[in-house]
């Protein structure tokens, strides 16, 4: 008997057996739903991510609702009451021109979030387009990746400052500069992911079936490289807020009188000994928002990647 048994793998022969006919469509749907529930549960279980989400939502609410919340116009000058400390009248004090810091910080959230969001999304989309095409076309790949390498070799702050000096200082150009700074790494991520996806068997199969190139790219590859790109987008969102603040701090960001956090910090830096509130409050808002976004990014990563624990 013993000799009659051949070496083989038991694994294979134990599987399967589900013979009954199931409505495949329904099964797929319920599976998807279940998966989504698992992901949401996973996300909500991570308290840090939930905290991040709450902070970010709160910032958005504050930014959108700024006109309703603030009693002062963030641009309204009142030089008589300059550099007044925190009071019932001015919760966060007033700045060097007597403007209400609370209003400026809240309106500043609009600018920071706009910059961060626009940069994140645009860099994500551009990076994805570049990454996808680079992964399929060797010449495009060489050119695009050389340019990306070149741009990446220049430290981002320095590149952004230089670009801001070239372009007229306004919020649109801050966004453009930051996109240019962030696209290379985004494209890199998208490209490496796209290459992995491209080599997978189902892509071979699609090619075999004669799918057109753009259909392959957008219908089949794009969704598969989306997760790492989305995760990266949240981090770019966060880092753009910091870079914008740093640019304004160096005097190369969104120009006065716009109440960007970086501008308030920059003005506050000069009077930090006498008007700590001008540094503290925008500082806290910046740190909180960035923190929230980073936490959210971690949560999104877990949410999108079912493999991660």
């Amino acid at each position, binding site marked *: 008997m013993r000799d009659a048994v051949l070496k083989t793998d038991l694994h294979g022969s134990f599987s399967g057996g589900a013979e009954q006919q199931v409505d495949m469509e329904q099964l797929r749907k319920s599976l998807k739903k279940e998966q989504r529930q698992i992901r949401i549960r996973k996300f909500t279980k991570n308290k840090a991510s939930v905290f991040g989400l709450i902070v970010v939502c709160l910032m958005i609410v504050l930014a959108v609702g700024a006109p309703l919340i603030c009693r002062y116009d963030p641009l309204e000058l009142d030089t008589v009451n300059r550099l007044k400390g925190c009071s019932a009248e001015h919760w966060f004090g007033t700045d060097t021109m007597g403007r209400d810091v609370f209003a400026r910080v809240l309106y500043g959230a609009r600018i920071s979030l706009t910059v961060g969001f626009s940069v994140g999304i645009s860099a994500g989309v551009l990076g994805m387009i570049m990454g996808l095409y680079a992964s399929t076309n060797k010449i495009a790949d060489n050119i695009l990746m050389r340019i990306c390498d*070149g741009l*990446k070799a220049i*430290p981002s702050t320095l590149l952004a400052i*230089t670009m801001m000096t*070239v372009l007229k200082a306004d919020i649109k150009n801050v966004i453009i500069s930051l996109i240019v700074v962030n696209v290379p790494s985004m494209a890199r991520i998208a490209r490496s992911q796209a290459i992995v996806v491209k080599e997978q068997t189902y892509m071979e199969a699609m090619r075999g079936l004669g799918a057109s190139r753009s259909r392959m790219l957008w219908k089949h590859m794009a969704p598969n490289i989306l997760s790492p790109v989305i995760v990266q987008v949240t981090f770019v969102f*966060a880092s753009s807020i*910091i870079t914008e603040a740093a640019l304004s701090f160096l005097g190369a960001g969104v120009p006065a009188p716009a109440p960007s956090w970086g501008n308030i910090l920059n003005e506050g830096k000069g009077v*930090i000994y006498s008007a700590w509130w001008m540094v503290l409050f925008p500082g806290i808002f*910046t740190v909180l928002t960035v923190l929230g976004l*980073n936490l959210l990014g971690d949560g999104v990563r877990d949410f999108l990647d079912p493999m991660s624990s």
Partner: protein
Amino acid sequence: MKKFILKRVLSVIPVLIVVSVVIFLLVHLVPGDPAAAMLGDMASAEDIAALRAKMGLDRPLIEQYFVWIINMFRGDFGTSVANGEPVLSVVVSHLMPTVSLALYALLIAALIAIPLGMAAAQKKGTAIDHAVTVFSLAGVSLPSFLLGLFLMLLFSVRLRLFPVSGYTEMSEGLGQHLRSITLPAIALGFMNAALMMRMTRASMLEVLSSDYIKMARAKGVKEKWILGKHAFKNALVTVITVFGQSIVHALAGAAVVESLFAIPGLGQLMVNSIGRRDYYVIQAIVMLIAVFNVLINMLIDILYGVVDPRVRIR
């Protein structure tokens, strides 16, 4: 390995070409020019125009570009508009503070981050781990200029432990030198420390859950050795990568910290040079940093080889 290195070296060339074109165009597209900056704010238009012609700024851009590139190959990086020094010597004189600051920052960061990151990985879920997580999040969310301001207020003005600003050269004593760059180094290193901590923890976690660690345990190796020898050497590859990236980060981040603490480094030189439209200096710094960046990446690859035989031998 030799072929690999050669390939790496060749791949540097297009990168540098891109960098040179990008920075040259950017710099020359910037409104305003060095001539006006050199003559001061009360200078007249004719004086400025005359100086422009003298400096060759009225020639076509392409010509200026090639003149610059060719001169660079001859070792001539041009003349700085500030006090007419050769660019090379200006850059070299600003190099030391930045290198010193960046290395010091990274040293502090590495000394804190790597052991803590390892400890956090080993004691996952404990207080240390949570502390490390919080720290690394704070690190990536706290811009260096804010941290710098707070450090300055606390340690220099209130406690008077460190000088507020300024830079003491190493030649005037190592102690004084370190004292003058400690606060900026902390401000600069904080974010890097956070990144390193995060990466060390993650890669240690991965290594610790690997089979060879289980095998080492089954062999009866002490926990201490497992962590310090078996796991660390494997995690080192990641750590080296982060360290390399941090050097580049530190160089880039130095601009803000340097101008805050009045440290005459490359970052400050760059910011100042943009202000005075010191074309050649801006171009030289960017090229230098790009070359450095590329070299660091190459060095990381070679270090990989030293640490990881899989890379070395293949």
